[in-house]
């Protein structure tokens, strides 16, 4: 029995480890160790440690970059379900969004939720410094929580804006003309504090529920895919 060609196995494991970007070191190392253990098991079964056998074993495992990509997505999504950090949740969702339309929609919805929380938080911070420009503004056809530039013609409103029947944006819906009223006065502090808290919590719960329901399901496309079609010997669909 010859010694297995260590270089190609090491190269495979190094490529796998390197491609697991963004995954916590402990999780990455354990995954690589498990794949290494699998290679050793296969070599033990084969008995023959020739280069051809090693090559077949590595080929059966799949492309290390594709394997790492899927593992990274899973790891980031799993981490997102256990954290309260908006950054980690958005990072996991950004990864999921590259895998399909469901991930993209959840990412956009979550981004909007956290954006709403950010607007509320900014209003809380800025209101004491520019009280005449921060508030809940009613202008013709538009309700905006955020900043008003003080003009009645071509006035510029930035924040969270609602314009019935369908427009709801973060940012601005464009300049408006006409009277602008501030609706809530000092109650803006309470509204923004409650709004920021609720948005943060509701967005996190929504994102984590969607990840558990749809993101970490077994039937999410895997890359590389299982080769289950009769007569197909390769690992790519």
């Amino acid at each position, binding site marked *: 029995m010859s010694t297995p060609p260590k270089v190609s196995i090491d190269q495979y494991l190094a490529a796998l480890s390197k491609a697991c970007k963004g995954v916590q070191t402990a999780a990455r190392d354990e*995954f690589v160790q498990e794949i290494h*253990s*699998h290679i050793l098991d296969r070599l033990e079964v084969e008995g023959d440690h020739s280069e051809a056998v090693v090559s077949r074993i590595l080929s059966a495992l799949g492309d290390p970059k594709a394997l790492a990509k899927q593992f990274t997505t*899973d790891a980031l999504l*799993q981490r997102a379900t256990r954290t309260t950090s908006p950054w980690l949740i958005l990072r996991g969702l950004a990864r999921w969004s590259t895998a399909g339309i469901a991930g993209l929609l959840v990412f956009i919805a979550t981004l909007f939720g956290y954006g709403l929380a950010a607007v509320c938080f900014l209003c809380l911070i800025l209101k004491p410094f520019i009280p005449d420009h921060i508030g809940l503004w009613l202008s013709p056809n538009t309700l905006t929580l955020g900043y008003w530039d003080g003009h009645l013609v071509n006035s510029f409103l930035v924040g969270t804006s609602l314009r019935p029947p369908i427009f709801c944006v973060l940012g601005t819906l464009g300049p408006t003309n006409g009277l602008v009223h501030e609706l809530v006065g000092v109650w803006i502090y309470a509204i923004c504090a409650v709004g920021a808290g609720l948005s943060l919590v509701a967005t996190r719960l929504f994102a984590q529920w969607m990840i558990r329901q749809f993101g*970490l399901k077994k039937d999410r496309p895997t890359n590389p895919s*299982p080769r289950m079609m*009769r007569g197909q010997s390769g690992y790519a669909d």
Partner: protein
Amino acid sequence: MQCMVSKAPILTEAQGTNADRWEAQLRKGTLELAILAGLHNQKLYGLQILRILEEDCGLEVLEGTLYLILNRLRSNGLVESEWITAGSGHPRKYYWLTSKGETHLQTMGLAWMQFSARITDLVAPILRKEAQHVHSAKGKH
């Protein structure tokens, strides 16, 4: 251990790409059930699970993909794992079912049995008629 997926091809005559895709999807959909069933009442490591899938169930899985699925099952609390160093000299990661996994397996198994029985009831008479038709056509010749 006997899996509920036949090793024999499900569609013996269908050669079209669509039929192949359908069969691939069907087999893919049973993977989780087959893995959980394989782990029933025993601790196994990756290669042992692969053997059960391939030899008992006729399910060919990209070997790297198996570890991704096991990782997901663990994160969902259906299986637990532990590194054990036995006779071979290198550590192996063994998996076993949690109580949540056992419950999930029972639920999935029951759903599979009921569903497959109904589909069999629907399809079996059609295949019998087809077989009789072929038999009688051969008899005439």
